[in-house]
């Protein structure tokens, strides 16, 4: 068993795949991070991310997979799941070891697992498209705080930019401490300093005048459309798990 230590980037992972083929390794394990104290007799290889080598692997993948297939793999890596780097490496090796395109081979454990992870990411992205609640600030920027399970902000850019083209907005991931800012032209990644704010999810002091009114109206609307005779808490919770409530205007 050889352990490959890489920097956690997708390019780093592709470089690691290059090394695996270059050194004819068979049993490997990927580990994210800079330093790693190993067991005494374990083989350790430190991978230095190399754009040329990563590019060659990517080119190979593009030849053997559809564009969607490559994108799914990339998104699955973005999920940053602890033990699934090996899944992705397993998937890539299966791609290169097969003559045909294997992305629909759901009987294969790597293909199935990548499909599962991709669906988890897609679900989280969809939840964010639904659960973002903007609050209008004095300078006309619409601000929303979120804490998604996965790092999905980059997957939200297109949707929000298309939809809210005529308003400035910020979507901020409090868990990973960075956000998206749209300035009516482009989006950029930003990070904010919240040390002075107690609850960065709810910045009431900076509200525009009518913000409170519309929050009040929305809460009223939400209560009015409920049909008590059909109460179904289990279903309610399945659709909106509790961990999302703290940023949902109607559930605060």
């Amino acid at each position: 068993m050889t352990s490959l230590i890489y920097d956690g980037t997708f390019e780093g992972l592709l470089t690691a795949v290059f090394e695996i083929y270059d050194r004819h390794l068979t049993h490997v394990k990927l580990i994210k991070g800079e330093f790693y104290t190993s067991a005494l007799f374990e083989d350790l290889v430190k991978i230095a991310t190399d754009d040329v080598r990563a590019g060659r692997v990517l080119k190979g993948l593009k030849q053997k997979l559809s564009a969607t297939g490559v994108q799914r793999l990339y998104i699955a890596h973005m999920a940053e799941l602890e033990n699934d780097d090996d899944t992705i490496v397993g998937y890539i090796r299966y791609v290169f070891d097969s003559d045909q395109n294997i992305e629909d081979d759901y009987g294969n454990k790597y293909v199935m697992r990548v499909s599962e992870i991709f669906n988890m990411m897609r679900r989280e992205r969809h939840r964010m498209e639904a659960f973002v609640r903007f609050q209008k600030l004095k300078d006309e920027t619409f601000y929303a705080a979120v804490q998604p399970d996965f790092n999905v902000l980059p997957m939200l850019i297109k949707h929000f930019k298309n939809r809210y083209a005529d308003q400035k907005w910020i979507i901020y991931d409090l868990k990973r401490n960075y956000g998206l800012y749209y300035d009516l032209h482009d989006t950029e990644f930003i990070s904010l300093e919240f040390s002075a704010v107690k609850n960065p999810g709810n910045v009431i002091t900076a509200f525009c005048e009518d913000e409170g009114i519309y929050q009040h109206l929305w809460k009223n609307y939400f209560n009015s459309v409920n049909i008590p005779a059909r109460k179904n808490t289990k279903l309610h919770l399945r659709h909106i798990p509790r961990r999302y409530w703290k940023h949902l205007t109607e559930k605060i």
Partner: protein
Amino acid sequence: MNVERITEKLNILADAAKYDVSCASSGSKRKNENKGLGNASNGICHSYTEDGRCVSLLKILLTNHCIFDCAYCVSRKTNDIQRAAFTVQEVVDLTINFYRRNYIEGLFLSSGIFKDADYTMERLVRVAKKLRTEHNFNGYIHLKSIPGASDEIMREAGMYADRLSVNLEMPTEAGLKLLAPDKNRQDMIDPMAFLNKEIIQRTEEKKLFKKAPMFAPAGQSTQVIIGATPENDNQILQTANHFYKNFNLKRVYYSGYVPVLADKRLPALNTSVPMVRENRLYQADWLLRFYGFKVNEIVNNDQPLLDLDIDPKLGWAIRNMQAFPVDINKADLQMILRVPGIGVQSAQKIVSARKFAKLNWDQLKKIGVAINRAKYFIICKSNEFERRDLTGTNIKQFILAESKSKYLKNATTQLSIF
């Protein structure tokens, strides 16, 4: 803005609109052009009420003043309730401000009938027109077609709305006559038929001229109330099937009657909402639209009711044991779709995956097949499969014994005497 008054209106007019169950915001393809506000494509449920229903649109009545006296409706003329009416501008402001905060996908606007059909419909259209032309709003708009409205106004509605719907309310004409003596079924069908013709024609035009304007791109839907009148599931599904086939409806919604009014023609006030039956009807509806079932295979004159204990696909399977077992690795997609416990996505995955290698139980489970139901009906790459010659009734008992139905609130615990 008089916040108190608006709040009061919103509460009254949202409360009155909530019995319309349609909440879809999908099926349109309206783009955001010229840096305007919003777009409409796949539909998003932004929130869920405590009864578990999706909140996707700002669903309100323009007014709950109504000249009709339909027994099942809270807004009926003789019901002593608070009445209110929004102005066009108020609805526009609410929609825009809710939309900008990402609360909603758009507007669902219905109304009580005041004065006459055309007058009411014209007001609804005015809201949509203002949103589209003055506010460059490209979000989803669902308008109610008011029964009896003229072709001219319906045509204008189609220019601004994504979806239009007219509720049949009762599955049969007899039911409607009983509960809504002022309403006439033909008045409901006329605008539906007109719009259908118009949509088909516009779609043809759009094929020739890309720039031709959109016309109700998300099509039409309707709703029938379940359990207020004695129609059986066969009558309900035959009606639904008729409207899917002849009017190209995108959806038929089934709304379990919530007893809110005392009337000797209606179920008593303490009657519970027929939620299980409603669920079974939706399952049957899905079988018609996505699984290639014919309506007579699910319900017919000999089999007029859906089984409340089990889903209609399982019901069909145990009545048709001669069609099984299905070999997962050989059968065509249409047959795999008919296996209980296999959904559309799983079926497609199976058909893709088996090109690489034959599938076994573990793999099927991973793919998402509900093995506890499917195992009685399939064989795969394994020596282990159901060999007993079970009857449909046996299978139903086995499945019920090991399933925990979400509807069984108080599990029937038998008292042991000894």
